[in-house]
């Protein structure tokens, strides 16, 4: 299936592109297209579908008519097949092509393979040639393809409101170049985003040469890489660290969210998982200490988590360093740090015991001093060269936006060229950028959207999407990767490098030749060959940043430490710390108009379409917004008031340094008590229908001095409420056996602890004696009867599909959610519908907190006595994450109840779903214990989301542009049908067919079994930590069979005897028994025991930590083979 194409001859498709896309340019001019922008959709403007319409997309509404007949009334609706006039090289209608490209973001890029259907990129995958990512990709990369087809992207160049032709735009740029060449660029200023593109670097260098007096400044609202200043100070070299988590057995994170917020997170997460994964009890397992103020994904994986204000991290780091190095230089900074000394002592001891195999990581947003200390600790632990390498990077010679601002105020800027970014929205508050920008005579803005900044700019140049562009970039570790166009610019946009080249007045200004020159220069050798290879592999060999050996200069360190003061001011309700974080989905706001990302819930808060002011439960109580429980708390109290299922948040104003923003408050367990966390990237005012007005902008509080956190803030209620679209109403597992956890120590003694949990552990096996004796493969085909009344028909397929999800490595990054959305044409439904609980995601991540307090004594609340734990909100919970999609149950409860056979099993164990047969009784969804079935309550694909309730009166049809992102291999579902995950059945079918075709043509027709790993589900393919494994369980050597054979394998709700094909691998925690916050059992496990066994029993857990397994109900008498729910 996966084939990497050499890009067809650049001269042809790079410069002219496939002929038939011209039609799109014409389309943009048609009134029809203008209507799109006015959210009116003309009926199937067929100018677009170059190839036959069916391969274009499968819009199910087209089958609206009765039982497979054409439109009612007319017997034979006439449709046309439109083949190309001229054959297009390499394009086979019906077969996707794969091209290597990359998604640049700030100082790094993610190498990708783009899947294109007749020239339409529809899905992006990680490029497996780039080993560090191993074919994985990220949430943002998955969603970025949607931006390409954003109907509200900038489609024309404008100058003072009127349209500017491409030619005119070029003249304009050339003109700028000519004018300023004369004066050496005096009065010319550039404000650009950070970039890793070698070509841009080259052009900027030329720019400096040609316009020595011009100002080149770069600005990024959020930093995802450690400041080089720290390294320069302590090592005297311009280097940045690359961490080798796989080699680290003990990891300390100093407010660092290295699993999701750093430029190399994809690589880090993957490496971290390697050290985390435990497949047999001999395997080692890394231990993660985290000290952080917000609750990040990294924090949720922590074995020991210290809730500490970001401003106190410096002192903490100093204290830790002091303990480890015994150096007195840190003492001054560590003063007044208020926490259990054992915490630091034991943590330090643990690190010291792992010299060379430990690692201390500081968050990119922390000041240089913290990084310096971290480097020092790593140095003294002998980690440098082992668990952390330092690579040489180019020095950053750009000036800061603040300096640019000074220049502007000094009136020394006549022409300002804003390349990308969105300063009017996200520049530091004290600069008052909009006014500044207006004060500049000529502002040329080059941007993808016509946004806040464009509104204030005289000229706007429409940028091309990276999938339309020729370009290059570097990965976090410096490997040069190509950015290839998959499609001719839909709206004739140009790229950043082209813009610069035109200002420079270079002879060749087209992206292709610019990149060609750069790369061939870098790569050397026969330029044509080098470049072909570069495009084919999707990377340039041996182009990574060189690893340099560094040695710590004590003097430099002392200087850095001396330059900072201990900042351990006591925080309180009156003196809050505000922590600004890049939003998990919006990043710094650049993805605000991306519906997939807006609807994708935050992995921790589970809020979509909004950001919120996150406060700790304690602060919440002090602010008087503790949600009221019910008289008798039969389940844990929710962390927010839910009125009719939607979170009803209190709106507060957050004030710091005289600046104020207004936003809803959400109580977030696990925060440092007096740190409030606000996510950036929301509150866009000019973004488009999706992004505008979602959430509030926190940039209003942010200054250049304190971009990441600031103290001295206060929260004041406005007395008003607002509804938030929170996709998970209840946060507690209620002591149920959903996520089965154990400590590493327990696991080593008792690897199959998962079988001693759950109702099935009390009962005789569902499989019966016979079934227990069978091999997994036999179980999958025979379907042992067990105690059932019925004999199940055999599953006689040559494959039996199954999936295994390792809860121990899942970091909850949500990449699978959006990957699934992109692959399966899953619609977004909008905030209003999400609030009603109608989100359509086929795979979701359940996030649970546990504090060991859930108990069955609900009545205690009523009849006095000590109140039950149910009425308490946890301040310092453990987090458990669980991805849930349709588990393809062998004895599927949903199938039994469907009256029309719309969902039945196939012989390969798939729980299929025939949309065209479904009449929408929703009975299946009721009977699904996992609640993974999704119902199309409205025509989400056909009607604008803001007029769903208008019924037939609402405008009908999807913008052609949005249709283009749909996967032609998957039906687009209409109103009134149920949908759900089918293990990407389209990939399975195409995989099988491709294999059969191959073998038949190779004369081995009887070889019909697809080799393991050829077929990957979308969620599996994207997963950075490889926790999702899918394959054929008939093959005992397949990855999935191996995973399922592990002791920690269990079926969720296995006692129901529904025999899910997706099973989970139990979660492990690796706490240090010497630490003050050590718990002998995972807290969720304690809750499980409290709920399921007598009180005295549960209390005994604390006392006998050494053999906790036996405590969980003494079910030593379970059948040896008793797999929960049987299938493994």
């Amino acid at each position, binding site marked *: 299936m996966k084939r990497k194409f050499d890009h067809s001859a650049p001269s042809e498709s790079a410069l002219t592109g496939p002929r*038939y896309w011209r039609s799109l340019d014409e389309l943009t001019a048609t009134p029809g297209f203008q209507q799109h922008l006015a959210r009116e959709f003309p009926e199937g403007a067929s100018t677009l579908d*170059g190839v*036959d319409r*069916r*391969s274009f997309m*499968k*819009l*199910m509404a087209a*089958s609206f008519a009765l*039982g*497979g*007949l*054409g439109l009612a009334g007319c*017997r*034979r609706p*006439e*449709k*046309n*097949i*439109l*083949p*190309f*006039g*001229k*054959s297009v090289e390499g394009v*086979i*209608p*019906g*077969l996707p092509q794969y091209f290597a490209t990359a998604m640049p973001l700030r100082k790094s890029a993610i190498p990708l393979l783009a899947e294109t259907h007749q020239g339409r990129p529809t899905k992006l995958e990680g490029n497996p040639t780039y080993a560090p990512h191993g074919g994985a990709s990220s949430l943002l990369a998955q969603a970025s393809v949607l931006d390409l087809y954003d109907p509200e992207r900038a489609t024309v160049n404008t100058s003072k409101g009127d349209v500017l032709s491409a030619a005119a735009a070029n003249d304009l740029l050339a003109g700028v170049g000519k004018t300023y060449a004369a004066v050496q660029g005096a009065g010319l200023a550039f404000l650009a985003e950070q970039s890793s593109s070698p070509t841009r670097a080259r052009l900027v260098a030329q720019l400096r040469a040609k316009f020595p007096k011009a100002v080149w400044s770069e600005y990024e609202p959020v930093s995802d890489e450690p400041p080089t200043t720290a390294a320069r100070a302590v090592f005297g070299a311009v280097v940045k660290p690359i961490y080798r988590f796989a080699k680290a057995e003990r990891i300390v994170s100093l407010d660092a969210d290295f699993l999701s917020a750093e430029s190399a997170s994809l690589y880090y997460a993957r490496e971290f998982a390697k050290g985390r994964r435990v497949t047999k009890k001999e395997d080692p397992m890394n231990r993660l200490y985290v000290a952080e103020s917000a609750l990040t994904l990294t924090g949720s994986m922590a074995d020991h988590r210290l809730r500490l204000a970001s401003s106190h991290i410096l002192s903490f780091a100093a204290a830790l360093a002091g303990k480890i190095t015994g150096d007195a230089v840190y003492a001054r900074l560590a003063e007044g740090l208020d926490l259990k000394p054992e915490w630091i002592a034991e943590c330090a001891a643990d690190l010291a015991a792992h010299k060379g195999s430990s690692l201390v990581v500081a968050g990119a947003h922390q000041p240089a001093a913290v990084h310096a200390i971290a480097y020092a600790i790593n140095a003294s632990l002998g980690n440098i060269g082992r668990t952390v390498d330092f690579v040489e990077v180019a020095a950053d010679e750009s000036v800061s936006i603040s300096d640019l601002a000074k220049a502007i105020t000094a009136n020394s800027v006549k022409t300002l060229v804003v390349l990308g970014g969105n300063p009017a929205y996200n520049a530091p508050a004290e600069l008052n950028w909009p006014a500044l920008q207006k004060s500049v005579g000529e502002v040329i803005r080059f941007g993808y959207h016509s946004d806040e900044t464009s509104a204030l700019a005289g000229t706007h140049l429409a940028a091309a999407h990276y999938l339309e562009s020729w370009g290059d970039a570097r990965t976090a570790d410096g490997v040069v990767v190509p950015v290839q166009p998959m499609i001719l610019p839909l709206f004739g946009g140009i790229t950043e490098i082209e813009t610069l080249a035109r200002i420079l007045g270079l002879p060749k200004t087209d992206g292709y030749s610019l990149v060609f020159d750069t790369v061939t220069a870098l790569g050397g050798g026969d330029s044509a060959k080098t470049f072909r290879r570069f495009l084919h592999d999707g990377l340039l060999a041996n182009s990574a940043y060189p690893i340099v050996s560094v040695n710590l200069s004590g003097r430099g360190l002392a200087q850095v430490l001396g330059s900072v003061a201990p900042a351990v001011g006591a925080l309180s309700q009156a003196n809050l710390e505000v922590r600004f974080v890049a939003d998990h989905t919006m990043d710094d706001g650049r993805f605000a108009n991306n519906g997939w990302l807006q609807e994708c819930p935050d992995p921790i808060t589970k809020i979509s379409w909004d950001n919120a002011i996150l406060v700790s439960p304690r602060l919440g109580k002090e602010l008087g917004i503790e949600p009221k429980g019910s008289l008798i708390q039969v389940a844990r109290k929710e962390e927010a008031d839910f009125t009719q299922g939607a979170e009803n948040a209190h709106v507060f104003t957050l004030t710091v340094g005289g600046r104020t923003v207004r936003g809803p408050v959400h109580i977030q367990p696990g925060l440092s008590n007096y740190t409030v966390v606000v996510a950036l990237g929301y509150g866009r005012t000019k973004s488009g229908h999706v992004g505008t007005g979602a959430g509030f902008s926190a940039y209003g509080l942010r200054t250049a001095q304190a971009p990441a956190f600031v103290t001295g803030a206060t929260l004041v209620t406005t007395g008003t409420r607002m509804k938030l679209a929170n996709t998970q109403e209840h946060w507690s597992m209620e002591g149920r056996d959903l996520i089965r956890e154990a400590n590493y120590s327990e696991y080593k003694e008792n690897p199959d602890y998962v079988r001693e949990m759950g109702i099935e552990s009390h009962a005789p096996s569902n499989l019966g004696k016979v079934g227990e004796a069978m091999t997994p493969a036999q179980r999958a085909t025979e379907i042992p009867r067990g105690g059932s009344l019925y004999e199940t028909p055999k599953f006689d*397929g*040559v494959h039996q599909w199954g999936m295994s999800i390792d809860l121990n490595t899942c970091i909850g990054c949500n990449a699978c959610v959006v990957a699934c959305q992109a692959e399966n044409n899953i619609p977004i439904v909008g905030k209003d519908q999400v609030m009603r609980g109608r989100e359509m995601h086929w795979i979701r991540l359940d996030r649970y907190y546990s504090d060991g307090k859930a108990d069955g004594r609900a009545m205690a609340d009523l009849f006095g006595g000590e109140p039950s734990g149910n009425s308490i909100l946890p301040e310092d919970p453990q987090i458990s994450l669980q991805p849930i999609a349709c588990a393809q149950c062998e004895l599927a409860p949903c199938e039994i109840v469907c009256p029309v056979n719309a969902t*039945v*099993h*196939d*012989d*390969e164990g*798939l729980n*299929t*779903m*025939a*949309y*065209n*047969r479904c009449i929408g009784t929703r009975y299946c969804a009721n009977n699904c214990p996992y609640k993974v079935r999704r119902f199309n309550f409205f025509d989400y694909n056909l009607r604008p989301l803001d007029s769903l309730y208008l019924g037939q009166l609402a405008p009908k049809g999807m913008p052609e542009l949005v249709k283009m992102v749909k996967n032609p*291999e*998957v*039906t687009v579902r209409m109103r009134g049908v149920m949908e759900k995950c*089918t293990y990407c*059945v*389209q990939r*399975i*079918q*195409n995989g099988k*067919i491709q294999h*059969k*075709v191959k073998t*038949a*043509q190779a004369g081995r*027709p*009887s070889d*019909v079994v697809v080799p393991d790993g050829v077929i990957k589900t979308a969620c599996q393919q994207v997963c950075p930590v490889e926790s999702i494994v899918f394959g054929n369980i008939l093959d005992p050597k397949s990855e999935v069979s191996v995973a399922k054979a592990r002791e920690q394998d269990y079926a969720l709700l296995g006692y129901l005897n529904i025999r899910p094909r997706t099973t989970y691998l139990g979660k492990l925690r690796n706490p240090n028994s010497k630490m003050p916050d050590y718990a002998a059992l995972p807290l969720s496990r304690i809750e499980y025991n409290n709920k399921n066994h007598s009180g005295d029993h549960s209390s005994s857990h604390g006392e006998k930590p050494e053999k906790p397994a036996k405590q969980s109900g003494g079910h030593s008498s379970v059948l040896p083979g008793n797999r929960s729910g049987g299938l493994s």
Partner: protein
Amino acid sequence: MSKIFPKSANSLPLQIIIYLVVLIGIATAGVTYYMTPKYTRIGYAPVQPVPFSHEKHVSELGMDCRFCHSNVEKSGHSNVPTSQTCMNCHNQIKTSSPLLAPVRESYASGDSVPWVWIHKTPDYAYFNHAAHVNRGVSCVECHGKINEMEVVAHNQSLSMGFCLECHRNPETRVRDPKDVYDLNSQTIAAKAGVEAGVKFVHDWKIKPPQSCSGCHR
């Protein structure tokens, strides 16, 4: 008394029943005729922009299906040839035939020739040509004797029932792989008896899907 109901009234109920029966019969027939592919599709032979004769090209000139439908073996879609494909020959022969004007224009301008789409399955049904032609299912099974058609006509209902019938007993339908594109060839069963067909199905591990996932996604 009882003027309302004359003697004749006694036969009234019987008549009503007869009328009803007839009415229902007509309704059923109507639905079957107007709503089932068996009648809506079969025999559909629209006028094409270019009167292309498969009869001439295949039977007389002996061209292979794959000459024009070049991707049928590789792709799920059997591609309709581009104008370029036509011109490969027709820039030598019949270069000035008025009938071919649309093709020449298309080749010149690059715009498509609007061929009328005949063999149409619903959008939610995913038929894959490669999977069939590579595994012993001949074109003729679904398209009929195209090679003898002056004007292409819809030959089979292509309804789900039609697909299932073959998927349920492939042994009677499979052909020797080298006969697949020979529309006059016989099925293995017809040549050497059903046992041979059964053997072929067994050797090739042919197991046509009968559950939803086979065709619906």
